[in-house]
């Protein structure tokens, strides 16, 4: 009787699966419990308190690169936000630049010119096979060894390269500038409408319209026109050398530039590969088919290959964006004040709340990653849907 019962539990598919899962979860809980207990004991022994109350204490350190005001009297919680914004800023700028370089290199990799092709190839192999951290440090070193402020290199009027960063005139917006921005926005909306209308006409009548040209003109010239009508409501404040430093203007710090170059040059190599394989994937067959229809070659590239390739490119592109965002945590190596450097590094050292702080930092990155993946999935679904329809 008893053996029968045992046999039923062990050899029955369902109860065995239940048994295994109970065991797994039990072991897991035990593991967590032991660690939690040990940690509590260790914390007590070392006199480290825990909890999130430290977030309201004043941080006591300065952050030089910041998007929102911050002084050493502000709280750790505010330091968290300053770091988060810096992380997001470098991630967004990095992705932007990496995409531009990546697409450029990807297309060059498919150029009909053998030399261009191979120069791009050498670039790709050399950048993606060297650690991104090494590249960040290298570019940062180069930037740090630019001339001192006294001997600043003036590349254009008002633009200076120095070892303290890149100085440029800062814009001063006067009354009426918002109208320029609004007109720009309206021009974009209008151009989308025009595109739709003309496309429809094109389908009906078969006549070709220079849609691209019309829209570019609209988007470029409308704001310019408004700008002049409003009496040029934008001025620049150029940096001027006063004593040991520049006065006025604005500065992009070498830490930011080092991160930007390192991250985007490295990631661009990967992006260029996805662009290349995306274009190859769709142009086989597709391109020949459309050529047979008698379209001109460059038109083919624009009308069929690129939009189709985008569909293939965007998923791996997003995962490259994710990688870049995660790699932006390397700012600590050169002193770029991102989330890991400021909050995860200095705040941690000052408060000793390692568990709480690392948890917050990790969950923040996790949230960013999952958000990007979520949008990716939504996009993928919509593309698949369109593909089927």
């Amino acid at each position, binding site marked *: 009787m008893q053996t029968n019962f045992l046999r039923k539990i062990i050899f029955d598919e369902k109860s065995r699966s239940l048994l295994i899962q109970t065991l*797994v979860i039990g072991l897991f809980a035990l593991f967590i419990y032991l660690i939690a207990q040990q940690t509590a004991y260790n914390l007590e022994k070392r006199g480290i308190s825990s909890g999130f109350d430290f977030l309201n204490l004043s941080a006591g350190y300065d952050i030089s690169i910041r998007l929102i005001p911050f002084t050493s009297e502000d709280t750790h919680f505010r330091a968290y936000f300053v770091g988060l914004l810096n992380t997001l800023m470098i991630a967004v700028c990095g992705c932007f630049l990496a995409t531009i370089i990546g697409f450029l290199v990807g297309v060059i990799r498919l150029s009909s010119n053998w030399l261009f092709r191979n120069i791009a190839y050498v670039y790709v192999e050399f950048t993606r096979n060297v*650690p991104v*951290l090494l590249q960040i440090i290298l570019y940062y070193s180069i930037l740090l060894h630019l001339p001192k402020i006294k001997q600043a290199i003036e590349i254009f009027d008002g633009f200076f390269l120095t070892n303290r960063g890149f100085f440029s005139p800062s814009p001063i917006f006067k009354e009426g500038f918002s109208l320029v921005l609004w007109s720009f926005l309206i021009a974009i909306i209008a151009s989308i409408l025009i595109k739709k209308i003309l496309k429809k006409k094109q389908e009906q009548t078969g006549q070709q319209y220079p849609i691209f040209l019309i829209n570019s003109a609209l988007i470029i010239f409308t704001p310019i026109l408004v700008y002049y009508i409003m009496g040029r409501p934008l001025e620049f404040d150029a940096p001027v050398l006063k004593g040991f430093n520049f006065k006025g203007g604005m500065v992009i710090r070498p830490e930011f530039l080092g991160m930007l170059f390192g991250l985007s040059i490295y990631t661009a190599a990967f992006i260029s590969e996805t662009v290349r394989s995306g274009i190859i994937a769709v142009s086989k067959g597709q391109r020949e088919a459309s050529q047979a229809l008698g379209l001109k070659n460059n038109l083919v590239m624009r009308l069929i290959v690129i939009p189709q390739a985008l569909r293939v490119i965007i998923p791996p592109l997003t995962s490259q964006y994710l990688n870049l965002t995660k790699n932006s945590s390397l700012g600590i*190596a050169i002193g770029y004040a991102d989330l890991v450097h400021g909050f995860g590094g200095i705040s941690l050292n000052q408060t000793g709340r390692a568990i709480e702080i*690392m948890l917050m930092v990790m969950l923040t990155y996790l949230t960013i*990653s999952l958000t990007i993946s979520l949008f990716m999935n939504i996009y993928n679904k919509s593309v698949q849907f369109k593909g089927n329809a």
Partner: protein
Amino acid sequence: MTTFSNQSLMRNKYYNWIIKNLFSSWVNSLMTVVAIIFIYEVGTFFLNWAFFAADFRTNFQGELITDRSFCSKNIMPGEYGACWAIIYARWDQFMYGFYPIEEVWRVNFVYALLPLAIIGILFDKLPFRKYFIYFTFIYPFLAYFMLYGGPGLSVVGTNKWGGLLVTLFLGVTGIGLAFPLSIILALGRRSKMPIVKSLCVVFIEFIRGVPLITLLFTANVMLPLFLPDGVNPDNLLRALVAVTLFQSAYMAEAIRGGLQAIPRGQIEAAQSLGLNYWQTTRKIILPQALKIAIPPIVNTCIGLFKDTSLVLIIGLFDLLGIGRAALADMTWTKLYYEVYVFISLVFFIFCFGMSRYSLYLEKKLKTDNS
């Protein structure tokens, strides 16, 4: 007569190639010219800097370079290129870290055997492969004994390890330990048991969602908090834990891709013969899935190998860490191009080699299947 026509045929072939790839249109020709100028400028600059105008061990006056003031470029600014003497001077550190000089033979011994330990895994048609694979399993223990010491060998603490030794140690050991773990994770993620499956999914996605540096920090700061008093892993071991967990999540995803590629019929055939879950997994599914998954696995390994450089942030001296230490030394400071180019080259050789191997496997897989 025939030789003549052959020759002209050959010449024709080259000619056609050149026309097609370099001068097919006037735009193309223009690009060719631009590219040649670019290559010439960059090439001569780099070659001059790295070789022709560079110092190796001695400067232009023939003196042995013992600190940076002897570098030709520092004696006659603007005329000379790289000063590689820093690499020579720090060679031992780059290779072994602070390993005692009289014990360095032990590291060399381990380095020398590394190819033998790996070759069996890399090539499946290798003669006597079985014995190489046996050696692969013995090697870690042998290497650990040789490097760390034990009965008959003096103990060299891991705080003395550095440079390429740390880079390779973290890379190779991290990959080796992550491999079995990643198989379990990948199988777990495909399990029908919801609890097992969700644990694996959460673990994998968590690790893949956070940067490695946060894991390294966590391991560095928190591992001592998690563990009882007696157990206190040193810094290198803590980094190894982080690196292994990190790598296992990425590898698991690569393996899952392989598992998904196995047709259901394979499992059904095995089941209908009476093989149980583990037999089916071990004998039928894994051998096929791993074969498909090796190229992506190698790609994750390249990533990990590069990422080992992050340990310098938690105070370990890997290759890059040693390089930075050399630059921080007043006698050699400012020679950062030399140091970084050298380290880049080392990483490049390893990573490029791995990526070539991965390409070779992908090609082989394609031909095997057709």
